[in-house]
């Protein structure tokens, strides 16, 4: 049976072996934690296995047939993923996760101080400013704190409004001629809030600053085109978009990657090596030191195929429907407060909330006991929680394989939680 938005979820779910399992004494699994990590369809598992059983070899290093095939599969995946996000293949660097991608840019910038004149524009020092936001995941905050520490630059940030939007009122004080980097999320992993990327990118560009977009929660859930958005760098993780763990992507505009000094160094990223010094290969190789996550890149390519066949617009519409149902249902339960936008404007499928009188950890436990897998805690966005005056929250995050049954299970679970802890 297909849902109102034309997505045949029942059929899709058959592709995901883990969704057939039960938890906690035979309860059906309601996996509503895809914001943390998604599950994988057998098409992705099969693609990785087929690669490993037929063509596995070290890529870009060998001249034998297996090495040729492996290199083709690896570079073919890069091309596929590049097409998916509106980039050229040589603008994508494979990393282990989005976190590494952000660190790569941050370290390349501090390395610029000991690199050649071509990397001048990446150099940072006292007086320079890095701008982030209060709703960032730790992955897009701590690396910039550390970069500031290494270089003497200053960290500044956009605040968050009470209803969970980016507070842009101070934009002209924040993004100035001193600003060198503006790093921000495309979609909050806690609030679901979608930020005005193009606006911020234009402001940054006008100020001569580089933009780094955390696209971890957007690329899996909507059609994203990095060129059209006008950002300089962007990152996302394979495991949040039906792909393998251990692989992520850094996008960088070609001219920037060409001028940027390396981060991790070692085999496969060099041009010439002598005992005393080395020179480096052009991008993307320059940023891919060592034997890469070959089969994982192939798996991510298969994930992109899967998402494309289903259609990103339909996935987005489906999540919209589920999110709306969850927001509506939660609003009807007394004592439940939504954390983040309560309406559907510029909002994705992460729904966080708190229950009066019940700590999120305790709520998560009861939900888990009912087979409802959600995330509780600060979701790696501790400053955001502090800003909103809560120690933690409960987060439901939907994906293409969820359906209205999952929403119902969540709402029933919240009611049961209240009953169990005797709050009304």
């Amino acid at each position, binding site marked *: 049976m297909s849902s109102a938005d034309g997505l045949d979820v029942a059929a899709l779910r058959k592709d995901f072996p883990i969704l057939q399992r039960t938890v906690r004494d035979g309860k059906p699994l309601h996996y509503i934690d895809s914001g943390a990590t998604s599950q994988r369809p057998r098409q992705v598992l099969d693609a990785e296995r087929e690669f490993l059983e037929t063509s596995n070899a070290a890529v870009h290093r060998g001249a034998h047939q297996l090495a040729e095939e492996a290199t083709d599969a690896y570079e073919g995946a890069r091309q596929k993923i590049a097409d998916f996000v509106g980039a050229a293949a040589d603008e994508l660097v494979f990393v282990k996760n989005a976190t590494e991608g952000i660190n790569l840019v941050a370290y390349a910038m501090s390395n610029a101080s000991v690199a050649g004149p071509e990397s001048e524009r990446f150099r940072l020092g006292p007086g320079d400013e890095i701008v982030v936001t209060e709703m960032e995941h730790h992955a897009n905050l701590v690396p910039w704190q550390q970069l500031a520490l290494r270089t003497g630059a200053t960290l500044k940030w956009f605040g968050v409004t009470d209803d969970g939007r980016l507070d842009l009122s101070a934009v002209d004080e924040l993004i100035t001629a001193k600003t060198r980097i503006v790093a921000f999320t495309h979609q909050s992993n806690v609030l679901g809030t979608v930020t005005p990327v193009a606006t911020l990118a234009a402001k940054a560009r006008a100020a001569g600053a580089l933009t780094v977009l955390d696209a971890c929660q957007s690329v899996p859930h909507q059609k994203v085109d990095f060129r059209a958005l006008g950002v300089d760098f962007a990152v996302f993780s394979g495991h949040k978009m039906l792909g393998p763990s251990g692989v992520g992507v850094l996008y960088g505009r070609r001219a920037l990657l060409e001028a940027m000094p390396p981060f991790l160094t070692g085999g496969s990223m060099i041009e010439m090596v002598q005992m005393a010094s080395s020179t480096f290969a052009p991008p993307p190789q320059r940023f891919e030191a060592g034997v890469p996550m070959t089969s994982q890149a192939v798996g991510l390519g298969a994930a992109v195929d899967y998402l494309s066949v289903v259609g990103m617009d339909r996935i987005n519409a489906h999540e919209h429907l589920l999110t709306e149902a969850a927001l509506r249902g939660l609003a009807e339960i007394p004592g439940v407060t939504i954390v983040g936008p309560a309406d559907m404007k510029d909002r994705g499928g992460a729904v966080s909330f708190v229950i009066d009188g019940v700590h999120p950890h305790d709520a998560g436990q009861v939900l888990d006991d009912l087979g409802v897998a959600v995330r509780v*805690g*600060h979701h790696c966005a501790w400053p955001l929680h502090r800003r909103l005056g809560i*120690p933690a929250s409960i987060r439901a995050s939907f994906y293409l394989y969820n359906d209205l049954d999952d929403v119902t299970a969540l709402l029933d679970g919240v009611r049961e939680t209240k009953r*169990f802890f005797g709050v009304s």
Partner: protein
Amino acid sequence: MQMEQLYQEIILDHYKNPHGRGLRDPFDAESFQVNPTCGDEVTLRVKLDGETVTDVSYEGQGCSISQASTSVLTDLVVGRSVGEAFKTLDAFTELMQGKGQVEPDEDVLEDGVAFAGVAKYPARVKCALLGWMAFKDAVVRAEGNAA
């Protein structure tokens, strides 16, 4: 529903009516502990008189497990010697890390036996130990200050 085994009445009682809560003076040392995965935190003070724990006071935010276990802690250690308190701490830690395989000794742990069910939920073990870690750390500091 296994929730009743985890959340025994004793735990919910301590959660709703915590013993010894609030930060008090005088104290010999204070410890701040946090559970990085969920943000739960506790600030705990100890006052020693020679070998005797004369007061434990604390403040914090966290789930029922972490709050109740800190409340139980104060019952179990205040008025006892540091040596006895650490023995209780060891017994409680062993119970928590025992994956549900350790049989708790009610003579030693008293209300603490109610936490036996927590040991089956690895993600909650840290919650139950939060206050206890703070106590251990504070005593070590207090003894360091005295030395």
